[in-house]
């Protein structure tokens, strides 16, 4: 229990890898998981004479992220070289943006996890574009150091989003990151897969301790290597305790120790100091002479604005009002990502029944793609086909469970709806056929007839199962209505 009250001050630096097909300054693929050093060219390899050419898509996605974060998009942005030596940086410098980032001065609002009615506005200082470095892999083989470099990742576009130190708790940080990730995924800016490194988080944290009215700041610690949101929360919680104790026992303050860099050890669940070289480095930033400053044209800005349709929260609200689905259903669909939302939108619009569409998409489509381990884009049943199936239900041509048979058959056999109905022998059953079926059932079930006549209309339900056994295509609604009518006339 700490003796003095304190405020935790946290700012986040989030790197998101932009969802471009090719790298920031060359045509190499950004595909994840390819064999080492197969997505490389003279530029990625840092060969002399190779020159960078800006990827327009990366500019657009960055500007799109900026719009979502309420940032200004300055008229001119430029490129700077950040210089340091490391084997995974073959040019000896990283092309980045120093003093004129593509996005500046924005904010992101989150609900405070401690109080759902409280909205907290987190300032965004800037978001700048830069190229990623390669990957170093250090192996200790047979007692001798062996380092390998994979340059596939070298040159992939990153957007570094830097927040103001407006965050006060680890939970707020997780809420911020969750909302940011959802937004970036929703807008197609990034996949934000922490496991693949397309979302990386560093946190700057210190405490402002109130010792009887005197505010004392602890040294700022930058925590790196947190590879999940859970780790971010754990690392920050650990760091808060550690900093308080360090101040209490050793008296470290920002004046005595400034800023330091720590890593997060997931196994031991502790933060630990990293080499101090980071802080003392002079990157000798200067404008990259191989690239011209970028002026986003009005056409480009217009294109970005047209890409900026709606944010996840707006989509949730829209689904509720447009299709009359519950808040819960809207959340499930929107949280499943932009492709699922688009799929649902198409099904709901085409079939005209948002509620039924919601239930089919959530129960059948989501379950099925989860089982198959695919994305909805790869799903065999198109939104139009599903909408047509739902329309058959609405028209009373198919019972829900029979429609499910058709759905399964379409998936199993990879056939279209018409073919599936044919395969299952589903066709409109002749009215006279149903009439003779019901008459036959009534004669075999005198008790049902008596019960109904005695005022228990529900008793007729017993006939429906038998009718479907005799003819799977018999429409339950039709059987029910016909049976009641015939009993009345008896």
């Amino acid at each position, binding site marked *: 229990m700490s003796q003095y009250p304190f405020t935790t001050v946290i700012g986040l630096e989030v790197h998101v890898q932009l969802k471009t097909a090719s790298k920031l300054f060359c045509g190499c693929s950004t595909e994840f998981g390819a064999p080492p050093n197969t997505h490389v060219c*003279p530029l990625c*390899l*840092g*060969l*002399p*004479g*190779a*020159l*960078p*050419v*800006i990827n327009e898509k990366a500019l657009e996605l960055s500007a799109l992220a900026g719009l979502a974060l309420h940032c200004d998009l300055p008229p001119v942005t430029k490129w700077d*070289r950040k*210089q340091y*030596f490391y*084997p995974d940086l*073959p*040019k*000896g*410098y990283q092309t980045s943006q120093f003093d004129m980032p593509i996005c500046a001065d924005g904010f992101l609002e989150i609900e405070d996890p401690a109080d759902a009615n409280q909205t907290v506005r987190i300032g965004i200082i800037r978001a700048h574009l830069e190229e990623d470095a390669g990957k170093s892999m250090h192996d200790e083989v047979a007692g*001798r*150091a062996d380092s390998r*470099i994979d340059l596939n990742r070298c040159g992939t576009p990153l957007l570094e989003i830097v927040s103001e130190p407006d965050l006060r708790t680890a939970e707020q940080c997780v809420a911020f990151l969750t909302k940011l990730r959802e937004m970036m995924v929703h807008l197609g800016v990034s996949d934000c897969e922490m496991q693949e490194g397309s979302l990386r988080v560093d946190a700057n944290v210190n405490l402002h301790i109130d010792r009887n009215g005197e505010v004392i700041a602890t040294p700022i610690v930058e925590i790196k290597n947190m590879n999940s949101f859970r780790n971010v929360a754990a690392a920050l919680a650990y760091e808060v305790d550690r900093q308080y104790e360090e101040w209490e026992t050793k008296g470290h303050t920002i004046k005595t120790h400034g800023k330091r860099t720590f890593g997060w050890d997931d196994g031991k669940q502790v933060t630990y100091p990293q080499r101090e070289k980071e802080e003392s480095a*002079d990157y*000798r*930033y*200067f404008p990259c*002479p*191989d*690239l*011209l400053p970028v002026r986003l044209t009005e056409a480009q800005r217009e294109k970005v604005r047209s890409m900026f349709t709606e944010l996840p929260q707006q989509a949730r609200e829209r689904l509720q009002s447009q299709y009359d689905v519950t808040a819960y259903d809207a959340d499930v669909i929107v949280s499943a990502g932009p492709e699922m939302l688009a799929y649902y939108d198409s099904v709901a619009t085409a079939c005209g029944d948002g509620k039924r569409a919601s239930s089919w998409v959530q129960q059948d489509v989501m379950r099925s793609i989860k089982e198959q381990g695919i994305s909805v884009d790869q799903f065999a049943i198109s939104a139009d086909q599903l909408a047509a199936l739902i329309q058959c239900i609405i028209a009373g041509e198919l019972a829900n469970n029979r429609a499910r048979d058709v759905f399964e058959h379409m998936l199993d056999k990879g056939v279209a709806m018409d073919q599936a109905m044919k395969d299952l022998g589903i066709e409109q059953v002749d009215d006279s056929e149903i009439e003779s079926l019901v008459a036959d059932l009534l004669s075999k079930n005198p008790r049902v007839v008596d019960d109904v006549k005695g005022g228990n209309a529900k008793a007729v339900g017993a006939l429906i199962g038998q009718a479907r056994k005799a003819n799977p295509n018999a429409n339950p609604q039709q059987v029910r209505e016909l049976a009641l009518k015939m009993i009345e006339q008896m």
Partner: protein
Amino acid sequence: MLDSAHELLSLQEQGQLTATEIAQQAIAAIEASQPIHNAYTHVDAEAVLAQAQQIDQRRAAGEALGALAGVPVAVKDVLCTKDMPTTCSSRMLENFRPPYDATVVEKLRQADALIVGKTNMDEFAMGASTETSYFGLTKNPWDIERTPGGSSGGAAACVAAGTVPLSLGTDTGGSIRQPAAFCGITGLKPTYGRVSRYGLVAFASSLDQVGPLAWSAKDCALLQDVIAGFEPRDSTSLDVPTEACFAATQSADLRGMRVGLLRQSLDSEGVDAAAVQAVLDAAKVFTDLGAEIIDIDLPHRKYWVPTYYVIAPSEASSNLSRFDGAHYGHRAKDDNGNEINDLVSMYCKSRGEGFGDEVKRRIMLGTYALSEGYADEYYNKALKVRRLIRGDYDAAFNDVDLLLGPTTPTSAFKFGEKVDDPVQMYLCDLFTVGANLAGVPAMSLPAGFDQLNLPLGIHLHAPALQEARLCQAAAAFQTVTDFHRQRPSEPSSKS
């Protein structure tokens, strides 16, 4: 015989000469010159002969041939060639073979030029005498005790020695024009962005430009027309139509052209009287050709060299970071000949061994100028001065069409005269760096000889993108003068 590219083209067209014969002559000339002048770092005789035979066969078959078909061209060893080493005359890249061609080299191949080899230069193009090459001195064909200038010393000497009619150099602060002046030939530095830098090993990216060297302005124009043009792989390449330089050389009429005489540069300290006289004589020639001479000044001229020697080393310090022994190029071993396990030691030793003194000096200068706390005082201030220098040119070109002055303060100097005094060496760029800082085209052309009978050059500047105007004026000058027709006598020393 190998003096004039455009004559070689017409002789082939007339059937009086074959590409094979030309190639054989070039190879023989190189074999004779190389032990004396050492203009080349690499020559591939077999490939050239094979290519020449193909060109002859294609000509016989009536196929269309490129604009430089059968014309031997030498390429400065700072331009990437996928079938030849590209060393930048440095130990660092002694065994480096790039997997691709520079754009200008691709264009030479498309034009069916015979690329005979790579020419010697100051290491990474840093120097004004070719004395910093790891592969030995290149001798000036006019006096083998003197330097050919630099950094494109090999590119100028190979033409002056009569081994090829055309060569490609690069110019960051005068590296085409100063050696052209020292070797009595013509050299053009095009507008920044006019020629693609793709595949040019960068020294100072905002200043580097590839350009032609030849005896005459006509031949320079011929080569310029082949290499110029927008290229998307170089983001600083200018997306504007090119003007035909060779066509512009057909008119010797300069009536109405206003030539600004940089009279103050004639009064500069250390400028040889003969160099001054050459400029004044040239002004007279231009007057006779119909041009009007107007005295003009570029007020910030005295800041050119200091500005250049902040910006160029700053960019160089960054551009040369990639040569660290990790991925390619020279990697040092420890004293027992084993791999060095410690990364920082490997970096230090590889760069320590791989780079020569001048390169290290410039890396240190540039690193210092960009360092935190110094960048404002040096690099950022230099950028501001650079804008003023550009402004001077803009103002001058409101009044005149061309600027005229000396290319160098003196004729070629002797080996060892300046190499140990960097400041003296840097002053070789006194008249040439302005064009690079402002990005405008400039040309040096032979215009006289001093008392030692060493060639002197005059220097013309034109507004951005006006290479054709430069070529026209220079070619007109060469229709009424014969300085560009003088040839060095057999190898000798004039001391």
